């Protein structure tokens, strides 16, 4: 696996955007209010982000349609199979993230892990923003594929 190809300097605040927004699974009326949006804009362009060093934090307030739109990211390999992520945005704000499809080849062990870890990913992202935490200790297995597919979904939406 090429190391450099995976590096993304300042180019992946996609992960932050996740946390900045009410997660799909947040209960109605929860305090996960859509209070903060990230000030950086995800760099579009799929798996090979440009080697930005400045990262160009871009305000996200202008010239973007505010209607609700959805896109499903590319099928992406993760540790135990293949998955794709569906994202819904309102303007530049992510309002919903879900697993659109997942195939672990029927491996019961990986199914167990998927059940445990995929919802966790959404919650982790929410927690990181709303509770001022920077990490989660415990099981987590599939973030890379999750985030890659999410990034690809976002770039389909021009975000």
């Amino acid at each position, binding site marked *: *696996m090429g*190391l*450099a190809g*995976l*590096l*993304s*300097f*300042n180019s*992946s*605040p996609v*992960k*932050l955007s996740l*946390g*900045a927004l009410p997660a799909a*699974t*947040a*209960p109605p009326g*929860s*305090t*996960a209010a859509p209070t*903060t949006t*990230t*000030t*950086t804009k995800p760099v579009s362009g799929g798996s090979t982000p440009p080697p930005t*060093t*400045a*990262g160009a934090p871009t305000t996200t307030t202008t010239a973007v349609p505010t209607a609700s739109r959805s896109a499903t990211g590319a099928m992406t390999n993760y*540790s135990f199979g293949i998955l794709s992520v569906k994202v819904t945005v309102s303007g530049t704000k992510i309002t919903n993230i879900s697993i659109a499809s997942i195939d672990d080849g029927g491996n019961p*062990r990986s199914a*167990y*892990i998927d059940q*445990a*870890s995929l*919802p*966790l990913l*959404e*919650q*982790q992202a*929410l*927690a*990181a*923003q*709303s*509770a*001022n*935490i*920077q*990490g*989660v*200790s*415990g*099981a*987590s*297995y*599939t*973030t*890379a594929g999750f*985030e890659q597919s999410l990034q690809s979904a976002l770039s389909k939406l021009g975000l």
Partner: protein
Amino acid sequence: MSSETTTQQGWRRILHHDELVMGTVVTFDLYDDAEASSGLESMLLDAIRVLHEADRVFSTYQADSPISRLRRGEIDLDQCPAPVRDVLELCERARDITHGWFDPWSLAGGVDPTGYVKGWAAQRSLDVLRRSGVRGALVNAAGDTASFGGPLPGAPFRIGIVDPQQTQALACVVESPGAVATSGTYERGGHLIDPHTGRPASRAASATVTGPDLGLADALATALAVGGREVLPLVEGLDGFEGLLIDFDGDFEMTTGLRVAPAPKTIR
């Protein structure tokens, strides 16, 4: 409060990277007031290399790795690369400290230091980043974290602890003194083995250990999850280390020095 993107207090997350290695995902988050530089980029590559090198030496899934060859008796310890001897020495120390509750020699198929290596490698990887001068760094090796500095000046990293009964939720939040390791049967469907019986066993739903070093913290968390409350005093007696047990009813038991914040309300 938006931590990572706040700029008025000086620092922000300047770099995030996911690396697939050691059969899992290791994430890097770097915080500073300056932009990520090319010097930092090469430092990160060095840090990542540490993980892949550890994988090459210690993977029990690769038949030709030094540890696999040692396990099969094809080579002896003297013929292994130096890190193998170092890690096995550290494992021996952890075994003594935990009164045998962490014991890589008790497993079937020969010595297996896997339970120490992930934390040890993440800690060494973090130590590479320390030399970069970056203000805060957090390496998260699939749920075991090593860090220095913090997300903001004077603020330690805050780490959520997964609720063992409902793994999409958090049970509580702890401040990282450098390392936070959590072990629990929910992780991989009961991979914890009681070294005293050789059978799968666990006396706690989840065990977390914080301390200055992730290698030992990881081993202690394993010992605590397998051995339960009787291991807690052993952790208590170690300078700089604290432990938290969550039992199968969701009740907490912890060492006296550990400060635990409630899980955020926004997390179900």
